[in-house]
């Protein structure tokens, strides 16, 4: 019998679906709340044995730490610490995508307000300012003028955390009122949705965007598989803009995907797909 350990901190729809699909396939599942772990260096006793591990902690730092620990013990874990690290930092993601020839929006990093203003005038307004770490659209802002950009940057620099001193700016892509979320599981594209928001330029479902099923054409499939490989592969949500002139641009790659709305509107058994992928890894 295959043994799966699922790391989590706050179990939600997604974790329960994966657990249920695994148990339906006769997999022995053990749940480990990462918040309860005591990880002594050199002692693997805190981590139960398993054929394969799945990391589903919401906290990026906790997730990265526990995943690295499991890897050091020789465990096979999805997603890997490398993938989590690259996807957890939006600029590192963009950098890896760019280096692997995946089309991305024009992007720039600055550390100072004056340099931000210079870079923005070259990018052209509006510009999008993003935190390098963050999810669900939090702290993603659009500056339409130098004055508004100045205010956003001053706010970021006052927030105090070192990560907010890294200012990641992107061109504003003139996309339709939607983006694509494409799910890659291992070496295949599983399913995709549009995230439509008619009242805001941000298309995160956490911010009110509506999920609709989307068709994946061969070009989109190719772009998303290349994006997944660029960050080390695994179970990933690739966010894609449709630029009217340049075609598909990969905006982000997410390493701990939410899929409640996706399963609801597509009817696709994504949890089952993830479990099949884990079983395949366990057999290798």
């Amino acid at each position, binding site marked *: 019998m295959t043994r799966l350990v699922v790391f*989590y*901190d*706050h*179990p*939600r729809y997604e*974790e*329960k679906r994966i657990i249920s699909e695994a148990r339906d396939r006769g997999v022995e599942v053990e*749940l480990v*709340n990462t*918040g*309860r772990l005591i990880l002594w260096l050199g002692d693997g006793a805190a981590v139960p044995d398993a054929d394969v591990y799945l990391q589903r902690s*919401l*906290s*990026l*730092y906790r997730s990265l730490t526990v995943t690295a620990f499991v890897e050091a013990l020789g465990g096979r874990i999805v997603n890997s610490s490398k993938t989590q690290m690259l996807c*957890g930092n939006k600029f590192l993601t963009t950098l890896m995508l760019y280096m692997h020839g995946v089309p991305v929006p024009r992007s720039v990093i600055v550390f100072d307000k004056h340099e931000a203003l210079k870079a923005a005038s070259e990018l052209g307004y509006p510009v999008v300012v993003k935190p390098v*770490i*963050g*999810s*669900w659209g*939090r702290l993603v802002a659009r500056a339409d003028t130098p004055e508004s950009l100045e205010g956003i940057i001053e706010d970021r620099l006052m927030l105090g*955390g070192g990560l907010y001193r890294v200012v990641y700016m992107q061109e504003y892509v003139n996309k339709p009122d939607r983006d694509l979320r494409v799910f890659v599981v291992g070496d295949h594209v599983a399913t995709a949705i549009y995230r439509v928001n008619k009242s805001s330029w941000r298309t995160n479902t956490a911010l009110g965007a509506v999920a609709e099923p989307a068709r994946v054409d061969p070009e989109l499939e190719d772009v998303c598989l290349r994006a997944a490989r660029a960050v080390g592969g695994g179970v990933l*949500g690739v966010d894609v803009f449709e630029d009217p002139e340049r075609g598909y641009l990969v905006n982000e790659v*997410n*390493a*701990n*995907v*939410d899929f409640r709305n996706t399963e609801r509107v597509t009817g696709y058994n994504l949890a089952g797909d993830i479990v099949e992928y884990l079983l395949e890894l366990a057999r290798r």
Partner: protein
Amino acid sequence: MARTAVCPVCGEKVEVPDDVLDGEIIEHECGAMLVVRVEGNDVRLEEFKGVEEDWGE
């Protein structure tokens, strides 16, 4: 059979489903979001303080 715990916000008894998992976030009818802590057969509730900086996809 459902277990009960006390809501730390309103002080009322809250029925917690038997299959609840440690760390699960539930909403109480008083409006509070609560984190369920399961230790053996004991269940207690903590107020959910909100999404943390590094949470998310």
